[in-house]
């Protein structure tokens, strides 16, 4: 077989970008909220660096989401509020303490490595509390709160 290593891409006369050296974002040893998004109607708010800045809120007339480095509080008395949290956890043991009320149509799911559910809640009008062990790596918590829904996520780092 002819092992010709000629480039498969087209060669051009103009600028070709230099090879990039992009470092992966550092992952701290303890659990932190790395990224979060809240959607309410057509409005959307994205926390780009919650672990760096102080807690900030997405305020709507009848709905609210507040995200900080180690907590999330969300509620709606209006149309549905969707919240996505990406939690990054290093080698230290950590848990997510989740307090929720999920009226009909709501859901709450915590996925390890984006696709393996480690916790799924069932819609229920009562308030419930659960503690989820956070694995090393990234965990994504996805929640849809219908009118009257409540969610509180607090990260509990065992060594802190």
């Amino acid at each position, binding site marked *: 077989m002819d092992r010709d290593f000629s480039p498969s891409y087209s060669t051009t006369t103009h600028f070709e970008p230099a090879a990039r050296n992009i470092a992966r974002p550092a992952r701290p040893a303890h659990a932190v909220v790395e990224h979060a998004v809240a959607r309410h109607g*057509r409005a959307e708010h994205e926390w780009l660096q919650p672990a760096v800045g102080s807690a900030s809120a997405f305020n709507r007339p009848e709905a609210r989401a507040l995200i900080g480095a180690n907590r999330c509080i969300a509620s709606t008395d209006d149309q549905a509020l969707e919240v996505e949290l990406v939690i990054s956890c290093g080698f230290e043991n950590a848990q997510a303490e989740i307090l929720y009320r999920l009226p009909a149509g709501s859901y709450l799911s915590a996925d390890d490595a984006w696709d393996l559910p480690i916790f799924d809640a069932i819609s229920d009008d009562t308030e419930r509390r659960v503690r989820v062990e956070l694995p090393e790596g990234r965990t994504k918590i996805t929640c849809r709160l219908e009118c009257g829904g409540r969610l509180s996520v607090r990260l509990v780092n065992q060594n802190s």
Partner: protein
Amino acid sequence: MIDRSASTQVQTGQRAPAVDPAKSNRLRRARAIFTCACDMPADERLMFVEDSCGGDVALVELVRSLLRADEGNVSAWDCAGVEVASISPVLSLPLGYEPIRELGRGGAGVVQLCRETESGELVAVKLVHVESSGRSAAARFRREWRLLARLRHPALVALRSAGTLDSGCAYLVMDFIDGQDIRKHCREQHLPAHRRLEMLVPIADALAVAHGHGIIHRDLKPGNILVERNGGARLIDFGAARVLEGDLNTRHEHTLTGQIIGTLSYLSPEQASGNSRHADHRSDLYQLGVVAYELLAGMLPYDMDGHTSAEVLRTIIAEPARTLDSTGAVKAGHPAVAFFERALAKSPEQRFGSASEMADAMRAVVDALKSSDSQAVR
């Protein structure tokens, strides 16, 4: 009934001008076509524009003028004679941000100093009206702020959060930098030459980080380099940034349309000659060279007094830059002279290959300037 407005209107202290709805719709349509056309290969653009405008010759001309302006790296909306205020007379702030004052106004939006209600901290909120540019423009804007948020360097401004309002207005929340334009700072503080150049070294390092992520600033000028009270310089306003993505055979270039993309006096030769889409990271290095030159010499590398815009562009493209020793800033043979010959070379191939390389060369010149400054004091 209580008006439950989901946003706070920006108080600029000025009444918003009356808007002609027909004109506003026309401009929105032009902007939408322009945005789509920007993403197309150059040889297909004209046909696409003509098809999209449905025989409206004036609209075709408006979109073409925007495309020409985009290629020429000047403010597209300014070039088309469009008043920014007529596009988006009222931009709204998200709830939770109390407006304090307007910090600046650009091609498609405003930057507002606000207090974050939750934390009480001062932040800069940039508002951009993207809805009329269509869903793809909003998605692109979102993609780009995520990329910009990855840039971490002490000389860069951290993006905190971002979002879109019901109105389609997009916003970015950034750290507020309470600083002063580097040129003004140097002038007022009577800083020695080595200190002036030294402040730009972290900026070159920050550019290396941005370039490593495939992001080109494209609008480096003294007004976009702020010096904080602690003397540290910060590079602001990636609003004109271009993101290079993908591998070599499927490279796409994205532009934040409607932004001011470059300032005439600081354009690189390739930007000035209309090849802004092919301007790469070395274009940023050229612009940083112009800023450094101005800080040391107290003047731009070209004589542009009384020149028209076209003459300025021609000068940047064709005329050689004044050598630094000819301005009296340093003596002939000083390492700074060779540094600027390379930094301001017309051909990108003859410039520094990377921001890191330029930063290292800058450090060497700073050391040389330190010794010449101390000799001058003696």
